[in-house]
């Protein structure tokens, strides 16, 4: 600060850095898994070094085919997807995708899932010594795969079991990503915290469906898919608000974030960081714009450090 004409003028830029479970992020903005590929897809449009972290597409032990098409469908201010967790598998990722990501100084968070408890554990173990993997995000919530993660994320006991097993195999920061499709998310949140999660991210998509009224077919080949985008934001903000109050570990807010003021809602209710999903499709520069605008917001509001804003809801 310096004084100029009696008015205090800030010479320093507001600090946006946050820390989550030991991960130091230069700002609280990162992509949501599955909406940013393996990073390389967006590298032509966005400097990945700008991001607080990079989060990969969800990975499984073996490559996964995913669902038949159509896999996506636009809905009012949102979209449904039933990609079915198509991915190249953990080995191919380590060999062909990770070296690219390792060039950047933003921490790389690998999102993963399994079809069985053992698979979860195996993937986590496999990632333990991979250079450049800064943290893990465990998806126990994807609604798209019939025998997949859904059982873990909707039952506290199953969630607890799989997280504690994975916890034993990894020394990396472990973020557990929750599904919103439950009666009381505080129960699952507490369960995964007690089982050893270092942080919690939410929300994954809400289960939804759309019908083509002419053909009378579901618009997705899989009938049911995951709803994301601006439409779901109020639900996500509520759930993050509830989880923040229920647990002590840091929380990452996700759901319908397209602009800085959307991200701010999550930060104010207490999320330490946010993930941007569907908005990347709409605007590949969305995250860069959000980061810039967060800085400007802090400047305008006289906030020197974004941590001073986190969790300041006046309710």
């Amino acid at each position, binding site marked *: 600060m310096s004084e100029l004409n009696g008015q205090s003028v800030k010479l320093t830029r507001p600090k946006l850095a946050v820390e989550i479970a030991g991960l130091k992020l230069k700002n609280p903005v990162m992509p949501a898994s599955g909406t940013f590929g393996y990073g390389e*897809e967006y590298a032509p*449009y966005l400097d990945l070094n700008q991001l607080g972290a990079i989060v990969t597409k969800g990975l499984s032990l073996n490559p996964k*085919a995913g669902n038949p098409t*159509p896999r996506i469908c636009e809905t009012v*201010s949102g979209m449904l997807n039933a990609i079915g967790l198509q991915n190249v598998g953990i080995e191919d990722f380590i060999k062909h995708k990770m070296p690219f990501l390792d060039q950047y100084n933003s921490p790389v968070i690998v999102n993963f899932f399994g079809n069985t408890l053992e698979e979860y554990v195996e993937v986590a173990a496999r990632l333990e010594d991979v250079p450049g993997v800064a943290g893990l995000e465990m998806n126990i919530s994807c609604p798209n795969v019939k025998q997949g993660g859904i059982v873990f994320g909707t039952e506290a006991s199953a969630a607890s079991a799989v997280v504690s097993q994975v916890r034993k195999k990894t020394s990396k920061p472990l973020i557990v990503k929750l599904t919103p499709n439950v009666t009381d998310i505080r129960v699952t949140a507490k369960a995964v915290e007690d089982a050893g999660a270092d942080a919690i991210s939410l929300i994954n998509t809400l289960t939804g469906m759309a019908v083509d009224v002419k053909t009378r077919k579901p618009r997705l080949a899989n009938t049911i898919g995951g709803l994301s985008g601006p439409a779901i934001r109020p639900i996500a903000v509520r759930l993050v608000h509830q989880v923040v109050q229920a647990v002590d570990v840091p929380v990452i807010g996700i759901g319908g974030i397209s602009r800085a003021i959307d991200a701010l809602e999550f930060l104010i209710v207490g999320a330490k960081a946010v993930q941007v999903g569907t908005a*990347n*499709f709409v605007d*590949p520069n969305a995250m860069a714009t959000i980061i810039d605008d967060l800085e400007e917001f802090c400047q305008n509001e006289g906030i020197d450090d974004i941590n001073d804003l986190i969790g300041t809801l006046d309710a």
Partner: protein
Amino acid sequence: MKNHKTIILSNQEISPGYYRMRILAPEYNKLAQPGQFVMFRVQRSLPPLLRRPFGIFRVGYAAPDCDGMPQKEFVELIYKVVGSGTEIMQDLHQGDRVELLGPLGRGFDLGDPDEEKILVGGGIGLVPLYMLAEKLVANSNVRLLMGGRTRDDIITVTEFERLGVGTYVSTEDGSLGEEGLVTQVLERKLKKYPNAQVYACGPMPMIDAVQKICAAHSTPLQVSLEALMACGVGACLGCVVKGAGHSEENPQYLCTCKQGPVFQAEQLDWNRLENQSGDCGGCGV
């Protein structure tokens, strides 16, 4: 590959329900390849949420607004009004701000100069063939077989003619050119020109029929496919088609946006090409 925040230079109806939009697009003359596409966004407007994919019809330079100013690089799209997004597009005006991600995807392989080139376009599927024709006419004989349901669906054919392309029009109702399907014409041409390469773009049933005919004649075929797209850059995996080697155990999905939209026919699994967007009828959000 860039996200341009840019403006519309013009937007005109060229046939009932079909529009031609010219957009200021720096670098497109250098970058754009025949068969590539853009992801188009109507700014500040929601819905539609997602961008819409459109083939690049043409790139060029427009006269500057006044002497001494630089020429304006543009890209031209041609689109058919089919749903919520294109309905909004038809109301856009010169000067309106829009966003353009592109040029995207893999375009056409120009092939061997000695071959006869046969382009098969169905309705709006004609769009990506124009830039292709521009390149091909330099070295090859180029023929365009253009089909549509009715005469209103036959667009920009004279522009192909001006390039020196031989054009053969057919409509299902006989209101322009030959009555019937474009594939009839293709059968005849392939008999006449056995050493040909075929390039096709149009509705899925047409593409399917073209593939069968070309396979029967052992004629090399490139197709430009459509698919529902969210990202356009290979990130969402929404736009996949099954590759020739695909099996449940050994999945081989190709992204229409990144490995396509143009594929060599032999890259694809023609028995299992699933319903693409054309059949889905749009999302009617």
